[in-house]
């Protein structure tokens, strides 16, 4: 029993935070750079004997790193702003991914814009959709919000499915790749042969998102989200404009989803409504909760693990979804706060908010 308990209470996050707080600025910076370089070198891991256990059978490892792994991590981070930071359950996150992807496909095919110019457009459209959906619906709470967002996800998908102008059920093929980038050390090509460049691009987007969340967390919006998550009525009474910050959180999350969609479309060169089903929303939400809701590193870990696992075990192709489901059940039962839970301190202060309306 005692070993079971210690396993249950073992919190890597607190251990990690303890070590981190003991470091000086130089140590922190060098550790950060080392981690980023390590992440950047990940596509080469499959080539060496000491790391080729990571290799995914059947699909190309570097491709898997872009989609699903990189995309899922990016979207989980975006959804984490909504679900983890401000505590709103969003079951239709895939809608913003779809909006980003369709923006890329439509603008890329019908105009002369290239991916780098469409990226801000895609983010903007997703954010506008976020605001338009947010203003009427964010007055709702809890599970009602969940079903409305779920409905929105389905509305976007069904609209794409039934609009013949953007391909209907057949989707849109021949979406252009991003143009090459000329760097001092050489030309970075983006085409089907170079998944590494896409991976690095996604990595940069992920780092930017992490940076944005970390900056916002310690500033006014982050504090407002935290207050809303713990007790919305109390926050409102204390003068936090809750609706405004909820819309902000929703919109930022939507923007990240839109960015992921743009990259996805220009990587796979093909978008169709089948890629934006409710299952994706559920998967992303699983990544967030599985890794450790509200904790950036937990969410990253959850995204990597849940996107990578089904690809890694593809050799049991038929049963891999089954194994995936079992993993969700088992891990949630034994670590309900996720693999890397958020800081214990926050939980001690808010037992009521954590256990919800139970």
């Amino acid at each position: 029993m005692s070993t079971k308990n210690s396993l249950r209470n073992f919190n890597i996050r607190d251990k990690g935070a303890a070590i981190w707080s003991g470091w000086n600025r130089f140590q922190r910076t060098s550790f950060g750079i080392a981690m980023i370089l390590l992440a950047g070198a990940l596509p080469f891991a499959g080539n060496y004997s000491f790391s080729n256990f990571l290799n995914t059978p059947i699909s190309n490892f570097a491709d898997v790193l872009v989609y699903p792994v990189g995309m899922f991590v990016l979207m989980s981070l975006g959804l984490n702003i909504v679900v983890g930071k401000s505590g709103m359950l969003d079951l239709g996150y895939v809608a913003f991914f779809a909006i980003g992807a369709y923006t890329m496909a439509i603008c890329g095919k019908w105009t002369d814009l290239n991916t780098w110019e469409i990226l801000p457009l895609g983010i903007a459209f997703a954010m506008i959709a976020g605001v338009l959906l947010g203003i009427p619906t964010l007055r709702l709470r809890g599970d009602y919000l969940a079903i409305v967002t779920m409905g929105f996800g389905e509305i976007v998908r069904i609209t794409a499915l039934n609009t013949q102008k953007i391909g209907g059920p057949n989707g849109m093929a021949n979406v252009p790749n991003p143009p090459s980038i000329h760097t001092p050390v050489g030309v970075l090509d983006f085409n089907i042969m170079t998944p590494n460049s896409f991976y690095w691009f996604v990595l940069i987007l992920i780092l930017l998102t992490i940076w944005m969340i970390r900056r916002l967390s310690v500033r006014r919006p982050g504090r407002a989200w935290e207050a809303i998550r713990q007790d919305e009525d109390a926050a409102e009474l204390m003068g936090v404009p809750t609706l405004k910050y909820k819309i902000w959180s929703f919109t930022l999350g939507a923007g990240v989803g839109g960015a992921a969609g743009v990259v996805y479309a220009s990587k796979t060169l093909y978008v169709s409504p089948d890629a934006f089903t409710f299952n994706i929303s559920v998967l992303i939400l699983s990544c967030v909760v599985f890794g450790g809701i509200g904790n950036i590193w937990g969410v990253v870990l959850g995204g990597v693990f849940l996107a990578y696992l089904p690809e890694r075990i593809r050799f049991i192709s038929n049963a891999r979804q089954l194994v995936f489901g079992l993993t969700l059940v088992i891990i949630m039962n034994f670590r309900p706060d996720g693999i890397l839970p958020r800081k214990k301190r926050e939980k001690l202060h808010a037992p009521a908010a954590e256990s919800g309306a139970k």
Partner: protein
Amino acid sequence: MHTLISQFWQLTFSGAVQGFIYILISLGYTMVYGVLRMINFANSEIFMVGTFATIVVSRDILGHQPNSGDLHGFTLIYSMLFCLIASMLASGITAVIVELVAYRRLRSRGTNRLAPLISAIGMSIVLSESVSLLTAGRATIAPEMLHKSSLFTVLGANIRVDQLLVFIVAPIMFFGLQRFVNHTRLGKGIRAVSMNEETAKLMGVNLNRVISITFLIGGLMTGAAAFFFETVYEATKFNIGFNIGIAAFTAAVLGGIGNIRGAFVGGLTLGLLETYASAVLGSQWKAITVFVVLVLVLLVRPNGLFGEAIQQSRV
């Protein structure tokens, strides 16, 4: 629009039948939400298990084949009863297992609200993927037990015998359930837990038992819906629960989730709306119409048409 006017009563009848199926499924969502304040995400798969139980019993145990012709008289009655009971039991037992595996441990530890949701999602993936492996992902055709003959015509609407069966039996089951919740000792326990878990516990309600029974009843009703669904549509697949589950959940929210009477109104409204909308706009847009209506209703009445909580089901 022309179709809607010329076939209004026909559409109303089939919409109501569809609505009654939704009502029974949405009870699986609404009962569980009432006592746990959690979405029973695996209910769509509980429905799916029921549809397969119906087919397995009629095909493998009773030996009916899809092409063996219609049944008559006594054989028909006992076959249908047997299938109905099997479907209800299969779904009910699955629901109890889902509660044991996905909810109980997390509930007793009082964790955040999303953890049980994810473990229920996990359970629903496990259920649908197991069935997908067993059936090789193919659709399964049910033996036709009830000949789909039209009995009579009312106001220009053809009343088919299978639809009439749903139309009569489903409301009886619903009102039976409502009586159970409102007039029995166990029902009182369920209402007590849905009002206040802590107080109910202090008053001597066996919490675990009440929650198990709530899942069981939700499962039984979902199983009955699965049987009716098979009687009308006669085919199933491992992922059949998904869309119908979303629709039933929407119905529960429309009426006010956690509220049994709300499930009735929500299910019926949804069934009718869906049918009217597909007649006017074409069936590909019906899901959107439903969601748009749901959003509009929630904007005006944020707790659904009838508000939350099982305890309000006392008329």
